[in-house]
């Protein structure tokens, strides 16, 4: 077990201009922590992980594992284990051979390897499949073998590169919980890459959001949700995503359609005539005619059972699209015009319209 640190680490691909896939990443991962790297495709999250694994060169800065600088160390000497998106099992070896391969390479005695493989197999419910080849396994079983191969090595850090994206939705949710529980039990520092913000929020102790190779924010899931540092994080975290609309600012607050949204205490809007306003779908609600609100024409209703999400445009401004969470039992119908208002004033996020940085506190 060990802590991991990226110190201004960059991966630059030569070209004209050079592509900075990961740009001066500084990140501290504590011992035993489950850190999730999340971001859209091309955000550099996988590259960051591969730099830690030693599969990508570190062009600038350094990376340490357990206080040891591993920037120039061979992958096999970094004491890490990696789970690949494609699982990358050895097709010509049985499950047991796959899991014990690393130990056999280290010339660990056969009996010891067999014992450790058996332990890991029990943990992962693979005991019955130890003599099978990967091609005779289902997707979920292959995924578990890939996990087992990592566990058997007892590394100081687990690296996981989208290990669930080849599973079907139901199995993914199940395996998600299993991996989180397993990590809790083993207490091994884990760095987990995903593009799925739900996975990130449910599994990570902390979540690091990346975009275009730049770290946007690294915080606990709750903090990311409640206090996103910029408009990108605000829009990326949460499902459905936060409504981000441009609103003009007056003395009463921000105007959205006919609706006045009193701005937060401490929000420095003085320099701006306009701000980017962030409203979570659950911060909006249906209101009666006597309450302050604005009209929304419903263009799409997504019914999820307990809740329903209304997609629509604000009356008088068809560019301002909003998503509103309503009670799932009696949702308005398509094409209907409804009146919506804000739940509580302190649930609006305010961002600078140009830089996207958070203004409200």
């Amino acid at each position, binding site marked *: 077990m060990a802590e991991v640190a990226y110190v201004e680490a960059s991966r630059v691909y030569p070209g004209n201009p050079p592509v900075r896939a990961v740009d001066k990443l500084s990140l501290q991962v504590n011992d035993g922590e489950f850190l999730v790297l999340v971001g859209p495709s091309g955000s550099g999250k996988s590259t960051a992980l591969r730099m830690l694994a030693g599969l990508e060169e570190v062009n600038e800065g350094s990376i340490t594992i357990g206080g040891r600088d591993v920037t120039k160390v061979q992958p096999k000497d970094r004491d890490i284990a990696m789970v690949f998106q494609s*699982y990358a099992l050895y*097709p010509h070896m049985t499950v047991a051979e796959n899991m014990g391969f*690393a130990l056999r390479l280290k010339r660990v005695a056969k009996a010891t390897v067999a014992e450790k493989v058996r332990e890991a197999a029990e943990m992962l419910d693979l005991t019955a499949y130890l003599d099978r080849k990967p091609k005779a396994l289902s997707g979920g079983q292959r995924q578990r073998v890939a996990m087992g191969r990592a566990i058997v090595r007892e590394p100081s850090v687990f690296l996981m590169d989208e290990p669930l994206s080849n599973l079907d939705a139901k199995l993914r949710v199940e395996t998600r919980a299993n991996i989180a529980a397993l990590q809790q039990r083993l207490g091994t520092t884990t760095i987990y890459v995903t593009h799925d913000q739900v996975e990130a929020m449910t599994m990570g102790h902390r979540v690091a959001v990346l975009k275009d190779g730049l770290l946007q924010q690294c915080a606990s899931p709750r903090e990311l949700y409640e206090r996103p540092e910029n408009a990108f994080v605000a829009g990326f975290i949460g499902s459905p995503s936060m409504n981000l609309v441009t609103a003009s600012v007056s003395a009463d607050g921000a105007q959205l359609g006919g609706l006045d949204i009193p701005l937060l205490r401490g929000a420095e809007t003085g320099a701006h005539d306009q701000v980017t306003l962030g409203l979570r779908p659950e911060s909006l609600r249906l209101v009666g005619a006597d309450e302050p609100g604005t009209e929304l024409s419903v263009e799409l209703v997504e019914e999820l059972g307990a809740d329903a999400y209304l997609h629509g445009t604000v009356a008088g401004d068809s560019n301002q699209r909003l998503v509103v969470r309503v009670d799932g039992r009696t949702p308005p119908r398509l094409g209907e015009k409804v009146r919506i208002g804000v739940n509580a004033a302190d649930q609006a996020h305010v961002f600078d319209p140009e830089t996207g940085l958070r203004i409200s506190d």
Partner: protein
Amino acid sequence: MSIDAPARTGRGEIEPANVNTRRSSGFLGGVSHVVLFVWAVLIVVPIIWIFVSSFKSNTELFTNAWSIPGQLRTGNWSRAFSEGNIGRFFLNTILVVAAGTFGTMVLGSMAAYVLARYPFRGARFIYFVFVAGLAFPVFLALTPLFFVVRNIGQIPGIGQFIGLDSYGGVILVYIAYSLPFTVFFLTAFFRTLPTPVAEAAVIDGCSNTRLFFRVMMPMAKPGLISITIFNVVGQWNQYLLPLVLLSGQAKDKWVLTQGIADIAISSSYRADWPALFAALSMAILPMIIVYVLFQRHIQAGLTAGAVK
């Protein structure tokens, strides 16, 4: 994509476009089957004819070429084996082809693997030099090759083992002759192997050598078997190179093809056609057996289960 099951629209109607592709592929399929059948006949009939004729007597052969032999004259085979020296040539061929193919596969697979998976300066140049060897007509090389091998034979000590009239000389030339296609084919094959598996092996602690022998080579098994068959058959049937490299003075080192040619040439006086056909059958049979045995081991999709 399956052409057997026509795609259906939501209402269960068959889309017209798919009917068209299906019809034309059915027509093409029919044509290709006819072509394949004709081709198979062209190849199989002469082989069977040679095999049948090897049991006939000279008289039977010239009376009716298509007749069935009156009795199984195995004497043709034993005559070819003993008087034609085919037994000796057979062993020589096995030795030369085994060593030649083994050397080709070891060197070729290693070269192809490095060219396919390790980017370095000049990799493409080396690859193209190999590929250029494919376009080089062997007749053009014969004379220089003869002198090169003769000169190598002058090297004190080892020269006698790798020069003219030696097994070593033939084996080395076979390897050189087979490498271009082997490297060309295997480079393409190694490129298709999944990179994450190699990366997983590196993280698991494989050195480059171990990665090759314990992970990549087993994964490349279908490709290696195919090209091995190709090389065995190619080197087994090689005539021109041994003709140049193994002279009449080294008749004890001759390969099968030379032996058969010898029977054919001398038979123009003694006219022992059945013995010639017996010798030919002896040369062909092992190749058919090798092919059938190896073919069983080519499993399509050996890498299935590695990824996804």
